[in-house]
C-alpha cells in the first residue's frame, strides 16, 4: 500500500491558512482604519459584524427591530447551510488567532494532545441558549461573548493601546539617544494611526482576553471548541451541509493522528463518530493523514451523523437560568434615575433601546478622535457593562465629528450626518464655583469659554464680583453656561486647568434622547414678561 499524504488536501490546507491570514489582515486593516482619515464620512469599516448571524438574530429579537445592514448575515447562514462551519475555519479572525496560538503552543511543546473532553463540547450550546432566551426578554448579553465583539473590543480597549504604549516607549528611547534615521517618519506614521491609548478598563478587558487566549494551552482552539456561541449557532445550522467526511477503510491504518490533531475535536475517526457540527473544515485531518485515507467528497452523506448531543435537562436549565437572569440584571437603579455620568455618544438611542442593541464591540471607541468614549463599568447597570460612555475627564466629543454614529454596527447609535450631529445634546455643563479660578480667586481664566465649540458660545463670560481669600473684592469675567446652547460635548471639562477634578463638568441631564432626564420646561414667554 502506498503511504503518502494527500497533495490535494495539503494544498487545500495551505489555501485555508492563506484565507485565514487574509481575513485576519482585513480585520486588522479595517480596525486600524476606524478613525478620522480626512473625510467626514467613513466607509463601512464595521462590515465584518454584518456577516455575523448571531448578532443579527440577537439584536433583532432583543430590540424587536430589523437593522437592514444585517442582511449580509444571510450569506454566512447560506454558506454554513451548504458547506458547514467553513466560516469558523477559514474566515473568523478570532478563530485564526486561536489557531495560530495553538500552533505556536504545540510547536513549543506547551500544548500536547490530550484526551477528548466530550462533555465540554456542549457548553457553547448551553451558552447560546442562555443568551438567546435572554434576548427574548430584551436582555442582550450576546455582545459579551460574541467572538467578533470580543475581538474588536479587546483589540480596541487593550491590545492596540498596549501596542501604542510600547511603541511610544521605544520612540521615547530613540529620541533620548538622538537616533536620527527615519525617526520623524516613524512618529508621523504612528501619529497618523491616531490610536486611542487610554482606556479605564483596558487592563480588565485585556486580562480577560489574555485569559481566553491562554486557554489554548489546555486544548487546541479551546474557545472555538467549548465556548463560542457563534460557533454553536453555526454548528446547529450546519446539520445538512454537503461536505461530509469519508474515510477510505482500505487505506486507513488507524493511527489516530487525525483525532489527535483535529482542531475542534470533531473526531474524524471512526467515520461514524465524526461530529459534523464541530468540524470547521480546516482539513488538518485529511492533509495530515499518512495514507490519504480521509476525504471530504461533495454530497456523500454518511448513513448516520453524530449530531449535537445535548441533554434536555441542561437545555431547560440554561433557558431557566436565562429567565432568572433577566430580572437579576434589572436590579440596578440605572433605569430608575438617570446616572449623571451616563453620557452616551451623540445619536445613541434612548437608554432602554440602546441596551437592547449595543453589542459592546467598541467600534465607536476606536473611531472616537479624542479617546472620549470609554467602556462603562457600572454607570449603565449590569446590562450596560462595556457599553460606550463619554468620559470628559479623558476626552471630549469633537464638534464636527460623527464617526461613532457611523461605525456602530447595530444602529444602537443612530448614524448622523455632521450637521445633524452638531445639534445633538448629550448632556449639560456645570460650573463648580468653589473650584473655578475666577469665582474663588478672582484670577482670570477663560479656557472653557475659549474651547466651547458652538456658535454662539454656550459658555459666556460675565463680570462677577468676587471676594478673594484676602478679603479684597475683584470683578473678573467668570464663566456662565447657557443651558439652551450647551450640547454637553465636554471639551470645557477636558481642558479645564483645574486638572485633578475639573471646575466645570458635564452630566447627562438635558440629553436629547431622554424624555425624563431634562432640566427645564419651556415656559411661556408672555407669562414670564408679565410676572417679571
Amino acid at each position, binding site marked *: 500500500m502506498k503511504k503518502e499524504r494527500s497533495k490535494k488536501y495539503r494544498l487545500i490546507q495551505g489555501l485555508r491558512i492563506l484565507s485565514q491570514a487574509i481575513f485576519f489582515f482585513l480585520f486588522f486593516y479595517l480596525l486600524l482604519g476606524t478613525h*478620522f482619515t480626512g473625510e467626514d464620512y467613513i466607509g463601512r469599516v464595521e462590515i465584518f459584524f454584518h456577516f455575523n448571524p448571531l448578532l443579527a438574530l440577537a439584536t433583532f429579537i432583543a430590540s424587536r427591530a430589523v437593522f437592514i445592514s444585517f442582511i449580509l448575515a444571510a450569506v454566512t447562514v447560506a454558506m454554513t447551510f451548504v458547506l458547514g462551519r467553513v466560516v469558523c475555519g477559514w474566515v473568523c479572525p478570532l478563530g485564526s488567532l486561536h489557531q495560530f496560538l495553538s500552533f505556536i503552543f504545540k510547536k513549543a511543546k506547551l500544548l500536547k494532545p490530550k484526551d477528548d473532553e466530550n462533555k465540554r463540547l456542549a457548553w457553547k450550546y448551553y451558552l447560546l441558549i442562555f443568551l438567546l432566551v435572554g434576548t427574548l426578554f430584551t436582555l442582550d448579553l450576546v455582545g459579551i461573548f460574541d467572538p467578533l465583539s470580543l475581538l474588536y473590543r479587546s483589540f480596541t480597549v487593550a491590545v492596540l493601546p498596549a501596542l501604542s504604549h510600547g511603541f511610544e516607549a521605544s520612540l521615547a528611547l530613540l529620541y533620548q539617544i538622538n537616533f536620527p534615521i527615519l525617526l520623524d517618519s516613524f512618529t508621523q506614521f504612528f501619529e497618523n494611526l*491616531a490610536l486611542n491609548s487610554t482606556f479605564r478598563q483596558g487592563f480588565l478587558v485585556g486580562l480577560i482576553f489574555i485569559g481566553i487566549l491562554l486557554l489554548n494551552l489546555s486544548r487546541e482552539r479551546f474557545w472555538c471548541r467549548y465556548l463560542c456561541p457563534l460557533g454553536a449557532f453555526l454548528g446547529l445550522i450546519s446539520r445538512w451541509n454537503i461536505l461530509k467526511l469519508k474515510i477510505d477503510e482500505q487505506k486507513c491504518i488507524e493511527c489516530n493522528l487525525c483525532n489527535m490533531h483535529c482542531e475542534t475535536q470533531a473526531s474524524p475517526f471512526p467515520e461514524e463518530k465524526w461530529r459534523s457540527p464541530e468540524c470547521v473544515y480546516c482539513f488538518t485531518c485529511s492533509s495530515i493523514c499518512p495514507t490519504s485515507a480521509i476525504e471530504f467528497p461533495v454530497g456523500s452523506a454518511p448513513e448516520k451523523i453524530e449530531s449535537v448531543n445535548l441533554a434536555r435537562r441542561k437545555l431547560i436549565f440554561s433557558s431557566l437560568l436565562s429567565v432568572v437572569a433577566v430580572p437579576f440584571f434589572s436590579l440596578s437603579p440605572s433605569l430608575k434615575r438617570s446616572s449623571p455620568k451616563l453620557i452616551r455618544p451623540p445619536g445613541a438611542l434612548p437608554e432602554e433601546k440602546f441596551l437592547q442593541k449595543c453589542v459592546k464591540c467598541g467600534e465607536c471607541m476606536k473611531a472616537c478622535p479624542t479617546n472620549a468614549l470609554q467602556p462603562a463599568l457600572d454607570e449603565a447597570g449590569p446590562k450596560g457593562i462595556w457599553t460606550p460612555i463619554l468620559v470628559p475627564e479623558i476626552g471630549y466629543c469633537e464638534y464636527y465629528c460623527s464617526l461613532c454614529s457611523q461605525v456602530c454596527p447595530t444602529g444602537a447609535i443612530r448614524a448622523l450626518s455632521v450637521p445633524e450631529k452638531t445639534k445633538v445634546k448629550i448632556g449639560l455643563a456645570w460650573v463648580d464655583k468653589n473650584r473655578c479660578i475666577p469665582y474663588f480667586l478672582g484670577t482670570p481664566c477663560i479656557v472653557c469659554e475659549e474651547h466651547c465649540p458652538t456658535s454662539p458660545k454656550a459658555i459666556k463670560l460675565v463680570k462677577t464680583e468676587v471676594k478673594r481669600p484676602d478679603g479684597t473684592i475683584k470683578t473678573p469675567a467668570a464663566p456662565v453656561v447657557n443651558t439652551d446652547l450647551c450640547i454637553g460635548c465636554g471639551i470645557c471639562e477636558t481642558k479645564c486647568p483645574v486638572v485633578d477634578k475639573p471646575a466645570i463638568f458635564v452630566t447627562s441631564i438635558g440629553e436629547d434622547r431622554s424624555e425624563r432626564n431634562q432640566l427645564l420646561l419651556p415656559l411661556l414667554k408672555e407669562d414670564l414678561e408679565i410676572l417679571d
Partner: protein
Amino acid sequence: MKRRDFIKDIAAGSLFLNFKPSLFAQKNFPDLALIQGDNPAVLTRKAVASLGGIGRFVSKGDVVLVKPNIGWDRTPQQAACTNPQVVKTLVELCLQGGAKEVKVIDNPCNQAKRTYLRSGIAEAAKQAGAKVLFPNKHRLKKIPLNGEWLKEWQVFTDFIEVDKIINVPIAKTHSLSRLTLGMKNWLGALGGSRNQLHQGLDQAMIDLAAFFRPCLTVLDAYRILIRNGPQGGRLSDAKLHNTVVAGVDYVAVDAVGTTFFGLNPHDMPYLRLAHQKGHGEINLDKLKIEKRTL
C-alpha cells in the same frame, strides 16, 4: 500653479536676483507692509517683497520653521486657522530663497490630525515642499525662556533647533486678550499645562514672543474672525478683510492688526505693556507702513 503665475514668479524672481544689492539698501525698508487684494497668495508674496524680499530673512541653507495657527478643527472659510494659501506661499518663498528645509508645526487645541487636515494647511504646506510635523510629546523639552514671568516651559524642540522662525498668525477675536494676533500664536509652540498661562496671559505673550523672536511675522487678515473667537463656527462669524500684513517688529504687526477690528493698539493691555517694556512700537503714526491695494 498656473503657467501665467509661474512666468510672473520667474520674472519677479530674476528681477529680485539682479537688483538685490542696489535696490534694497537696508535702510529703505518700511516697518510694515500692509497689502490688500483678493488673492491671499499674491498678498503674501507682495507683502514679503515690500519688506525687501525673502532674502532679507532667510539665508541659503537655513532650516526655517513656519508657525501658522492650526489651533482648531475648522475649515479655512471659518477663519479659525491661518489661511492655507498664505502658509503655502511662505513655504514656497523660503524654499525659493534657498532654505534647506521648511518645517510647519503647531500644537492645536483639538485633535492634531483633524486640525491639520481640515484646516487645509497640512496639504497646502506639503504641496509647497514643507515638512509638516505633528507635535509629539517626545519632542517636548523644558527650556529656559528667561522671561520676566516665564522662566521655563515645555517647548517643542523644533522651535529651538531651526535657524529661522516665521510667525504666520490669523487675526481673530479672543475673550481674554480681546484679539489673538501674532504674539498669542506662541502658545502653539508649547506643551505642558499651557492652559494655565491664561492666568497671566499678557505677560506670557510678551515673554514668549521675546523668546521665539521670529525673523518675520506675516499676519493673515484675508479672513478675520469678528465674533465667537477664537473658534468662530458660523460662516457669518468670519469676515473677508482681504489683507496681509508683514513686518519684523512683531509688536507693530499686532498693533496694526487691532485696527481691523475697529480698535486702537492702546486698547490692548498686552500691547501697551510690550511697548512700555521696549519690545516694539505701537504708535501707528511712528511706523513707516507701506500700504498697497492690488
